[in-house]
């Protein structure tokens, strides 16, 4: 039996064999294997990533037994990296698991080139200094990086890399590509071959709504100087025309046509998100451009020329009430047009590749097909460097968050998560890390936070006493449930980054374990 295929069945249904292959090729490095790090990795090992390298310099303490499932009583005193690594290996023997007993902070200082061997680095529980340094290293080496930290009932997840491009963004709700407002000649001709006024009631109620709408829209355009319904009254009139064509109340195809009539009213051409990608300076390609941008450049040419303002046709149609024959024919017409569009894009891509001095066949036809099918859904994610964000956060955003009730807890935690690192640099321990002297710790943390805010350009703003108090109470604890949540989020984002499917998060995710009103902050 094809065992791995069965084992991964439930996830193959999400990211397919291509996504799985990408995971199995990936090598992941984990920095610090407390519960946040080891839970992140656990979810990736189960999914079958290629290899993992666990880096942690600490020995297992009794306290670790209370928050980390991957160590047990027999581990006390041993290398934490080794214990976590051997548990993870038990979960999936297809994964190559190894460990290095070393403190990540030291590795970042002494051996920056070490990180260039990995696909992606998961950095957990790191302080600000190390985060900034590691970010610089990974950006230079083009290694994807994700930070995760749990701290009491709060924590954060932050992706950092220069650019991530997605072809298969697989959005949940996306308007299908039927071109009812702009049919191409073959579709028009097919619609013309069908008589809507057919006598046979069975045939009448099995005419697909695509045909109905193309025909009725054409009639409309003829009597309205070539334009389609645009005002409210016109849209209502159009729907009434459809209703009048029904010969009985149970004709689902006409009900579907009325419901889908907004597709006729929709604006022609591409959407603003895609337009923005076409306008991106990266679409001016040269020999350093990635395949993605080469294809975007071809897409831009296509839209301006053969496409007549439209992207290549997606080529699939949703299920709709229809006779089998008409549906299959319709499907073939859409597919043929999509295939023709791919050929045009292919020609343009080959020409561009030649022009920029690359092998014209370096992009496969499968890749091109996938690109065309998803052309309307392309996504480009860019992340500010950690250093930029830490030194000069986007001030209007920060001020907005600080004064917006929905964001006040999340931005409060954001500031405090940074303030505790400053605190630790000054006082050699985190606020409330040890018992006693809590009042003094609270006032010191408050001073530190206010100082940080003023350094960031938010003079005069402060955080609530409640939040500062809670942060001291947390005392740098790493609670298992919080770590499992943060680790779960981090692993989810890692999967999206590695498979290049779906859309990774933007900004910094700040977790609020108090009321779950977590937020994404774009700073």
């Amino acid at each position: 039996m094809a065992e791995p295929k069965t084992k991964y069945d439930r996830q193959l249904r999400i990211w397919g064999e291509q996504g799985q292959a990408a995971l199995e090729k990936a090598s992941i490095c984990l920095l610090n294997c407390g519960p946040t790090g080891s839970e992140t990795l656990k979810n990736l090992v189960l999914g079958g990533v290629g290899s993992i390298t666990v880096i942690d310099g600490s020995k297992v303490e009794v306290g670790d037994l209370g928050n980390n499932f991957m160590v047990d009583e027999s581990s006390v005193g041993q290398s934490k990296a080794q214990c976590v690594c051997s548990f993870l290996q038990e979960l999936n023997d297809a994964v190559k698991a190894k460990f290095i007993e070393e403190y990540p902070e030291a590795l970042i200082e002494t051996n920056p080139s070490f990180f260039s061997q990995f696909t992606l680095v998961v950095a957990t529980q790191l302080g600000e200094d190390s985060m900034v340094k590691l970010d610089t290293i990974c950006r230079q080496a083009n290694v994807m990086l994700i930070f995760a930290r749990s701290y009491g009932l709060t924590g954060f997840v932050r992706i950092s890399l220069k650019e991530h491009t997605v072809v298969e963004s697989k959005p949940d709700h996306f308007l299908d590509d039927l071109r009812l407002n702009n049919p191409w000649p073959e579709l028009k001709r097919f619609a013309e071959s069908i008589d809507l006024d057919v006598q046979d009631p069975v045939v009448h109620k099995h005419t697909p709504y695509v045909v109905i709408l193309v025909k009725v829209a054409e009639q409309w355009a003829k009597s309205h100087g070539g334009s389609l319904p645009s005002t409210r009254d016109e849209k209502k009139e159009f729907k009434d025309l459809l209703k009048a064509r029904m010969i009985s109340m149970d004709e689902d195809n006409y009900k579907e046509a009325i419901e889908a009539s907004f597709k006729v009213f929709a604006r022609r051409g591409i959407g603003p998100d895609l337009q923005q990608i076409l306008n991106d300076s990266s679409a001016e390609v040269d020999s350093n451009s990635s395949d993605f941008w080469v294809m975007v450049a071809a897409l831009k040419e296509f839209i301006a020329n053969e496409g007549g303002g439209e992207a290549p046709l997606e080529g699939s149609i949703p299920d709709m009430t229809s006779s089998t024959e008409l549906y299959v024919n319709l499907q073939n017409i859409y597919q043929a047009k999509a295939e023709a569009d791919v050929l045009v894009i292919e020609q343009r891509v080959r020409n561009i590749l030649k022009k920029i001095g690359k092998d014209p066949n370096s992009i496969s036809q499968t890749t091109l097909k996938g690109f065309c099918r998803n052309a309307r859904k392309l996504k480009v994610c860019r992340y500010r460097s950690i250093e930029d964000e830490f030194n000069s956060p986007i001030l209007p955003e920060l001020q907005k968050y600080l004064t917006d009730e929905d964001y006040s807890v999340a931005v409060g935690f954001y500031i405090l998560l940074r303030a505790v690192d400053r605190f630790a640099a000054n006082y050699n321990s985190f606020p409330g890390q040890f018992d006693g002297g809590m009042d003094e710790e609270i006032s010191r943390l408050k001073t530190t936070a206010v100082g940080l805010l003023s350094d960031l350009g938010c003079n005069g703003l402060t955080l609530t006493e409640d939040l500062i108090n809670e942060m001291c109470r947390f005392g740098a604890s790493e609670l298992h449930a919080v770590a499992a949540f943060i680790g779960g989020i981090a692993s989810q984002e890692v999967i999206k980054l590695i498979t290049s499917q779906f859309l990774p998060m933007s900004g910094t995710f700040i977790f609020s374990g108090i009321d779950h009103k977590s937020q994404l902050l774009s700073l």
Partner: protein
Amino acid sequence: MADAEAQPSQSRDLDKLLLRPGHLVGANFEPGQDLRDDLAQYAKVLVVGAGGLGCELLKDLALSGFKNLEVIDMDRIEVTNLNRQFLFRLEDVGKPKAEVAAKRVMERVSGVSIKPHYCRIEDKEIDFYSDFNIIVLGLDSIEARSYINSVACSFLEYDSDDNPREETFKPMVDGGTEGFKGHARVIVPGVTPCFECTIWLFPPQVKFPLCTLAETPRTAAHCIEYAHLIKWDEVHSGKSFDPDDPKHMKWVYDEAVKRAELFGIPGVTYSLTQGVVKNIIPAIASTNAIISAACALETLKITSGCSKTLSNYLTYNGVEGLHTKVTEFVRDKDCLVCGPGVLIELETSVTLQKFIDLLEEHPKLLLSKASVTHQGNNLYMQAPPVLEEMTRSNLSLPLFELMGKTAKSALHVTGTTTKNDKKTSVLRKLRVVFKGVDGVTDMDTAGGA
């Protein structure tokens, strides 16, 4: 105190939350070592389901200060579980999930006791569920959620002013996932909406009309469902289809391929056949981890008061970026399950048999094969046979007498009802009022059924 702190403790991180006073905490929060010890010693938590969520929940709860856990699950381990149900290994395939999960967590977390129950949730007496301080649900079926919800709601009592009595609250925390999406919610019957109050959040699955399958198939799924729902019965008269039998599945697949070829329909694969026939919901480790962690955290907060609680429904969506949202749903005042109970007015002469017949016709209940209990006493039980025999003689007695001749009292009935063409087990609470008996005022019957 200082000495105790200096000792290395497993509870190092959790102590920060449980031993220290806080500002954003629950009303009942009394920080201290007693709280930590009570949580370990007295708090009993039931985890329903030992699958993707259940495995995570057991681990999360065991590492959140709980030491008395029980888990109930009727399934055995399958190969397709191994991509996320991290307590199971290849060599465990075929063993009961609840037993293996309990054993694995106890092996790793010292001092934790987990009692497994390898059975259906309906197999347990209602009393079994009353024993727990809180019930955590890691299920993938609406029917099972609905059943546990009705059980937890059945413990809820109302005072004479129809206000819920706090000491009868049985809180639940419920999680669910599908692909990159999930939800976690807190249900305190009597305070928050119960599962049934917001049942519209779980619309029934849309089925293909049979005439489409038979006459105008258009998609691969239509061909598969034709083979599964129509052709199978035509060919195998009387033999029912078993989705877990690979030979049956292969037959459906082959038939679907033939039909697809006949109509020129692309896309029938074995994997799709399984997906359509078994209604497979995609599932991955990371989403389960996120949702379970949220549920475990809420369980800790509700039980200890160490922070505020989720109010009351969290959704997570990781498909397009990362979205979490908290929605505060409100109770349905007329909810049949968490409300004070369906009011039924009876003559004192009505026998138990007549009452059971009445339940079948009652428009709000439509309950057949009812078993009836009153304040923990079985008045009539349909099963097991021993109990049926013992209680059969009650059928001919007036309900009024069986209920101790009180003018107004609550009853619990279990039975089956048909929902979306599916027979489901339900538990309902009824308020029975006898006509013409002292103590019944107009107020009591106002607004009744």
